[in-house]
């Protein structure tokens, strides 16, 4: 409860019924992942590729936990909004600025659940002939997986619940909570624009 009471953003935190992962737990795990990646990619100058927007927080913390030279780039895809649905297929709205042919690419995700977006992006990246392509996700929900992946690095396996915080949103809110928590049921039920 302390995390909720003392969150810098109490207006958001009050919608949380339970903290699943404290900011301390998240930071400890991110540091471990950073150590592991530093050891595995030493001397390879990998490119870390993230998909906006949820990965922002994890990417920023992970980069600072990695102590070897790395580059970073971002992609973005049209979310499954009503406008995007009308246009048919998912599409890139921001592509990489760095060529990745022959490079070691580590794809960074905040959350892998169905794997649908990740599957789409990995197909695109594979076509660009990277020397290697691996996935690092901070959070994973295996129960929702539709596309099977091997994530080389996984921070936490999350339960089958709707969670927010540390990049994870509900209608674009709650990303800036420093912890990961469950939304109160009444918040999930509320519809319409905020």
């Amino acid at each position, binding site marked *: 409860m302390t995390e909720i009471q003392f969150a810098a953003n109490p207006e958001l935190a009050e919608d949380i019924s339970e903290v699943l992962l404290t900011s301390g737990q998240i930071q400890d795990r991110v540091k471990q992942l950073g150590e592991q990646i530093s050891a595995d990619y030493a001397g390879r100058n990998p490119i870390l590729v993230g998909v906006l927007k949820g990965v922002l927080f994890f990417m920023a913390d992970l980069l600072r936990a990695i102590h070897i030279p790395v580059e970073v780039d971002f992609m973005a895809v049209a979310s499954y909004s009503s406008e995007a649905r009308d246009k048919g297929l998912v599409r890139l709205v921001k592509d990489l600025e760095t060529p990745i042919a022959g490079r070691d690419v580590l794809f960074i995700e905040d959350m892998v659940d169905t794997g649908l977006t990740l599957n789409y992006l990995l197909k695109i990246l594979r076509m660009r002939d990277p020397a290697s392509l691996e996935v690092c996700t901070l959070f994973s929900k295996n129960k*929702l997986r539709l596309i099977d992946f091997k994530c080389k690095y996984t921070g936490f396996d999350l339960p089958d619940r709707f969670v927010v915080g540390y990049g994870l949103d509900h209608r674009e809110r709650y990303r800036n909570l420093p912890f990961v928590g469950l939304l109160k049921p009444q918040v999930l039920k509320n519809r319409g624009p905020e």
Partner: protein
Amino acid sequence: MSVTNYIPADTTPQNSSNGQRPNFSHPVEAAFARILDYYGIEWQYEPRTFPLEWDDQIRILEAFSPDFYLPQQDLYIELTTLRSGLTTKKNRKIRRMQALYPEINIKLFKRREMRDLMVKYGLDQEAEAFAGDAAQHDETQQSTP
């Protein structure tokens, strides 16, 4: 016992690639199909029926048709909008299917998982179905036998 035979539900599987839209038995199934379409995932709707029980004459007494099949993933998907207390029969069928057809991959998306999926993809109207009576069909009203 392992059984490899199955009954084709239809000689022409309904899917998104041939332009035919199946008659989905629940709006949530249609929403799920649209999500798969959006991400370019090939799917078929109820393409197979798996016998589960036979009588002495090897006539089929009970069978199960999972809602979706994803050919590229070789994965069957069963969606349920039923509240957890009403899923006993469906859970039993899936357990029976897994015992008889261990080589078949099947995943059950439960009510809360479906709701979360709809919320995640901004499908508020469909998510709302999980809050009211629409989510409480009796199992006999579902597409699966």
